[in-house]
């Protein structure tokens, strides 16, 4: 495995510029004036964009198409002849999506909070402290990035079962409260903080706890919020773990709910209602995407720039 120093060196050099570059990905720079030569670029990009986003648009339209039109028409049409809200009502009534969403929010909230908080603490220790076994401990953290989830989910299933945590929020969240990626990323951030701040704080006699929360964290909020969104998405989109650790309908998450809704089709599949269900499950992440696109893209961009 890569030694701490290698990782540190590689990333340290990248640190100062990457935040600004990531910013550019999130918020593109604009050239001064319109040029006719841009038009082909626009056409191509819009074409690609529509193709990429097509599955989501189709799901959107389908969710407003009456079942009769979907099943009986010989050829599928993109837009419904009559727009109906019926599918949403069917989906909402057939499956407790409200409860599933709540469960997803709680699970995601716990995991995100845990990962952010614990990563801040650990990253701070690695960035600002001198202590024995520091390199070895850091290697242990980074090493966990290379342990595939498939290797550990069976024992984790047994552990959570033995704790009696199946069908609980603890069972859904606790195994994921730490994030090696978060520790690594935030450590890089903390290392870029100007040293005179630290000196000043030291002269003022600030405790390390105080320094963390009053100086380091406020100055690193760009990185912290980027990682927060990263953690949020990862947790919200979990599939395998909630699939095996929940069997109580009141504890299923939204992702598992949509799977069960898909299975809950006895006759000809009610695609309109299924797409309505998919839209319901997608909405929170789409909102995050629209509202926090900049932080999200920045977070991802930084993860790449740090590699």
């Amino acid at each position: 495995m890569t030694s701490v120093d290698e990782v540190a060196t590689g990333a340290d050099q990248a640190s100062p510029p990457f935040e600004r570059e990531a910013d550019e990905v999130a918020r593109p720079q604009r050239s001064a004036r319109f040029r006719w030569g841009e038009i082909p670029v626009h056409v191509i990009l819009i074409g690609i964009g529509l193709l990429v986003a097509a599955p989501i648009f189709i799901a959107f339209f389908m969710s407003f198409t009456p079942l009769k039109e979907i099943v009986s028409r010989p050829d599928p049409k993109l837009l419904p002849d009559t727009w109906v809200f019926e599918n949403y009502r069917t989906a909402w009534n057939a499956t407790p999506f409200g409860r599933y969403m709540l469960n997803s929010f709680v699970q995601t909230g716990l995991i995100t909070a845990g990962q952010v908080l614990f990563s801040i603490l650990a990253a701070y220790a690695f960035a600002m402290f001198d202590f024995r076994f520091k390199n070895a401990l850091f290697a242990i953290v980074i090493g966990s990035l290379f342990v595939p989830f498939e290797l550990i989910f069976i024992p984790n299933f047994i552990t959570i079962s033995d704790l009696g945590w199946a069908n609980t929020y603890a069972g859904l969240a606790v195994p994921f409260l730490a994030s090696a990626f978060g520790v690594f990323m935030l450590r890089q951030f903390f290392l870029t903080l100007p040293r005179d701040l630290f000196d000043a704080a030291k002269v003022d006699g600030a405790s390390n706890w105080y320094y963390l929360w009053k100086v380091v964290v406020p100055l690193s909020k760009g990185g912290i919020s980027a990682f927060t969104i990263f953690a949020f998405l990862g947790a919200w989109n979990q599939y395998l773990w909630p699939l095996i650790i929940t069997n109580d309908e009141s504890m299923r998450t939204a992702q598992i709910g949509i799977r069960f809704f898909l299975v809950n089709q006895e006759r000809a599949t009610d695609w309109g209602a299924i797409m309505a269900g998919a839209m319901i499950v997608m909405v929170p992440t789409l909102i995050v995407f629209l509202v926090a696109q900049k932080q999200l893209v920045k977070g991802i961009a930084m993860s790449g720039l740090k590699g």
Partner: protein
Amino acid sequence: MKMRKILALLLALAMVATACGSDSETGGTEATEATTATTAAPSDDGGTDSGTDDGEAMADVIEIDFWHAMADDLGAVVDTLVDRYNSSQDAVKVNSTFQGSYDDTYNALLAAFETGTEPNIVQNFDLAAQTMFDTGRLVPAHTLMAPGDADAYLAAPRDYYSDETGMVALAFNSSTPIVYYNADMFEAAGLDAPAPDWTFSDFLSTCDALEANGVEFCVTFGTVGWFFEQILANSGGLYFNNDNGRTARATEAVFNQGQGVEVFEFLTGLIADGHAPNLGNTWSDTDSVFFAGQAAMNFDSTSGARGMQDGADFEVKTAFIPHSDSSERNGVVIGGAALWLIDSGDDAENAAAWDFMKFMTEADQQVTWHTGTGYFPVLASLQDSPPAELNTFWQENPNFVTAIEQLATTKTVNDDLTINYPVLGGRAGPFPEIRRIIVEAYDAVLNGGLSAQEALDEAAAKANQALADYNAFFE
């Protein structure tokens, strides 16, 4: 500063997380207590039992968890029956949970035994019978039944879910496979209703007539294991050795011998020759094709009688399943599922769950269930001396009678008075896996270029391995 608020929030959430953690360490015992005395306070670690939803549950109400695999319109009828039970008395409250397909439910149950989250009652399918016996976690039905109680049930479902001592599970939803057909298309092609004992050749000539008349696909069916099992039984072929695993534990699959190959050639041939579309391992896409008028026939369970009849905008009729040319018609194996009582360790709770199970197989509920779905009534009395309303219903809905007659005319005893084991169906611990292996065998023929014989040989070898692995723990 905004950042501080966010951090405060994060901290608060983290504290909740740790609080949940410590709560839940006691949560395990709490959960088991909660099932005996439902007065346990709602725990914020996630409501291990749905009783917490009600908060102030009555102290003497016993809550029963009931898992079922009935999707969609069938699930709605289950919920109707559960509601009827809950409002019929105050002592027991049944919470039903849809657990997905039969396979999903079975998987969830086995995992739940480990996590300690098993329900009181599970609706588990025919194939799971041996595994359910082997779990050692059941309260067998016969221990709670009075002598003679079992005679109220039809012989086929009763025997299917019995071990040597008596009934282990209560048959609830029993079915057989039938052929649904588009009567308008049959009429247009000048075809009569299929004969009850029609053979593969009869079936194929029907196909030719239909397709000559412009029908796109003669038939549609999913590449599921059930139709192979059933048509094999109808053709008099065994699935496992030891008399289908009925006289001793099955140690070997024999579906690759004798009739099996002929049956599998027929089924895969329908798809390979373009008589049926290849929709894969599905129960619902086939219905879409049938409803859309792309296929004239549809193999499905009788449980779909209601949904087929109501869902199609053409006249739907039903027929028996065919058998091989080289055999006589034998009949069908009981399908569907039964209700299994899982020992909660608490007699009062077991008794409450048992009360609900009995309720579900009582005449009133079975009539609602039968007419709402198509599963046939499991009570002998409903067939021997049906109430007037049922007779009227059958006259108006002949599709609901097909499965009953198909089972009633099944040859359970041979001419020499020995038991006709093929129609009793196979019994083996890893039967659900073996059904999965058959799904793969379809693919081996349709995509992999193997012959039916080769694919079944391969499947039998895998099945034998699964049997050996399973049986190793029960020697």
